[in-house]
């Protein structure tokens, strides 16, 4: 398993880079070869990623959640998988380059900062069912926010292109504004729902499972703050009919706030949310 994990870890960035390059080629130049090979390339990357997660999970006997950087590989995996499902279901391929690009970025960061597979030690807390559910819900929630951010970013890009009469490649290739807004909004709803589950489990079950649990943990506070931003953006959309563009901006603020605060917390502060 260790050998498989090492091989997959080495070739996964290459696989993602190739898939990204092919999607980019299809996006910018409409190359027939690129259009034909982009999905197979993505499937290959996804298979290698599956093998990596399988090998690491089997080696340790539990899911990869030692550090946020290990979580990133799972987020990267779920982003790719979600995008592939969306592509298969809707036939919409104009946004593929951006999702594969994000997955590549997250995976590269993950591989650069994660400890070597054999250096990681198991924490028995991770075998608890409630913790597993908490982590899974948080993972899906953050992945949904990442997907929402990609759609939101593309929405703003297209909005400004149309407003400023720049009718270039992005204008030609991207789907309509309303579709991008809806995809961003639906992803946010999924994120808010799953993060709510993660927070609820965390607040109800974790105090009994984790001996050093406390309510002032910075990661817990940031998670609740992020959830509140997204929830209020959605509430504003449905209750006070806030315009779609502002909802998207709020969601993006929430997403980048998450990235920055989580990075700071993990480098500067410590708390019970470390499983090493």
């Amino acid at each position, binding site marked *: 398993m260790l050998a498989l994990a090492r091989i997959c870890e080495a070739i996964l960035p290459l696989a993602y880079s190739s898939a990204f390059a092919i999607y980019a080629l299809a996006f910018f130049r409409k190359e027939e070869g690129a259009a034909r090979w982009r999905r197979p390339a993505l499937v290959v990357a996804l298979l290698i990623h599956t093998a990596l997660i399988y090998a690491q999970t089997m080696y340790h006997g539990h899911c990869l959640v030692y550090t946020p950087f290990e979580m990133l590989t799972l987020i990267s995996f779920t982003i790719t998988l979600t995008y592939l499902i969306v592509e298969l279901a809707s036939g919409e391929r104009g946004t593929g380059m951006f999702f594969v690009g994000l997955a590549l970025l997250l995976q590269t960061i993950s591989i650069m900062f994660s400890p070597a597979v054999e250096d990681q030690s198991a924490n028995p807390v991770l075998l608890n069912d409630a913790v597993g559910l908490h982590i899974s819900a948080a993972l899906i929630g953050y992945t949904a926010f990442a997907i929402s951010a990609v759609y939101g970013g593309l929405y703003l890009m*297209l909005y400004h292109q149309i407003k400023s009469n720049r009718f270039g490649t992005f204008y030609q290739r991207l789907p309509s504004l*309303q579709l991008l807004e809806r995809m961003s909004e639906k992803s946010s709803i999924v994120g808010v729902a799953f993060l709510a589950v993660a927070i609820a489990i965390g607040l109800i079950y974790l105090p009994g499972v984790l001996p050093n649990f406390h309510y002032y943990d910075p990661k817990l506070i940031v998670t609740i703050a992020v959830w509140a931003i997204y929830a209020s953006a959605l509430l504003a*959309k449905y209750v006070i*009919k806030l315009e*779609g563009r502002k909802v998207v901006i709020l969601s993006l603020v929430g997403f980048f706030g998450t990235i920055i605060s989580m990075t700071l917390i993990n480098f500067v502060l410590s708390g019970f949310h470390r499983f090493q």
Partner: protein
Amino acid sequence: MNIYAVGTSHKHAPLTIRERIVFGDEELPAALQDLRRGGMASEAAIVSTCNRTEIYVVPNAEPFHADAVREWLGRWKKVDLQQGHLFSLHAGSAARHLFEVASGVDSQVIGDIQVIGQVRTAYQCARQNGSLGKVLDRLFSTALHTGKRVKSETELFAGAVSISYVAVELAKKIFHPIAGKRTLVIGAGDTGDLAARNLHGQGVTNITITNRTESRGRELIGRLGFGSWMPLETLPARLHEFDIVIVSTGAPNYLITYDHARAAAARRDGEPQLIVDISMPRNVDPRIDTIPMIFCKDLNDLNSVVESNVERRRAELPRAELIIADELAKFSAWCSLLPVTPVIAGLKRWGEEIARAELEKNRNRFGAADFEKIEKLVASVVKKIIGMPMGHLLDAQTDAERVLMKAEYVKMLFNLNGTAGDDEAPPMNSSTNNEPDRTE
């Protein structure tokens, strides 16, 4: 490749000439029949659109001169055609020209999507009237395949290049789906008419018409066959109801002011609104574009879209030309194999006849089950024996002259003189099997 193309287009003749030699749908069958009945052509097809009339023929006999087609066209249309008004092309040039036509490369507006359909109509018409043989059938199917490749592999057909289509394209970039959107057309002139028709063609059914003169507005609704009437005076109060607003009137002032639009935006709950002003002078205050979620575009903006789309299409021409060259090479290779098809057919028949005769002689020596097995075995051996000379003949790498020479050798070797005559096309390998998708 004995193909001739004679015709004219926007590049060769003025409209006054083109309109006199255009072929209507009802006229084409008779014209195609006349081309063949007169003994001039063994195969014929006519591509006739508002911008071009082109006649493609495979002559019945040599020598042949393209002037014969020009004279026929003049006679048929009773027009005195001058040499300069027509082009004539032969062999590869004729094939390339049709590929360029079907790919939108030769169109007045580069990448005119309609041309694929027009070439398909010409192909179907000639086919239905029995005026296509294997050469023109192959030529037209390859041309359609080429057009389809250019469409899918390049950006030659991308982006709208007319103002009314740009407005529709813009609406499709903002709304999803566009079909259910409420649309208001202000103005009952030709532009309003065209815009309403284009939107309706995209599935927009909720269309309201308004105009200063009610009778003209209602007249437009009658002409269109769809749409409902709204008095122009109610515009400020009802502006917020519409997702798409097309303004095309001759009014000298702003019909939609900044204040109207702001008030409407406030009542739209953040939903986007597209206002397209194709009037001259402008009827919509351009400051409206500064209001969030309102996209206000005037003629200048739309023209810049047209220009950038035309530019993008022009930049795609080299890629389209590569596809055309690729398809032309395949078509030429197929044509070079045409003379050997009777030899191949003769060779097959020769092998099958020998096998059949020998099997008949020995039928009584075997039981029914064994004989069936032997029949299959013999058929397989014959297939392998004749497969070798056939393989040499069909070698795509060999030039046409050598193919003919080899065909002569095979005929002598197997004594095939007089046995040929099957009128079948050369076998298609995977690289030349380019039957177009006719469902497009």
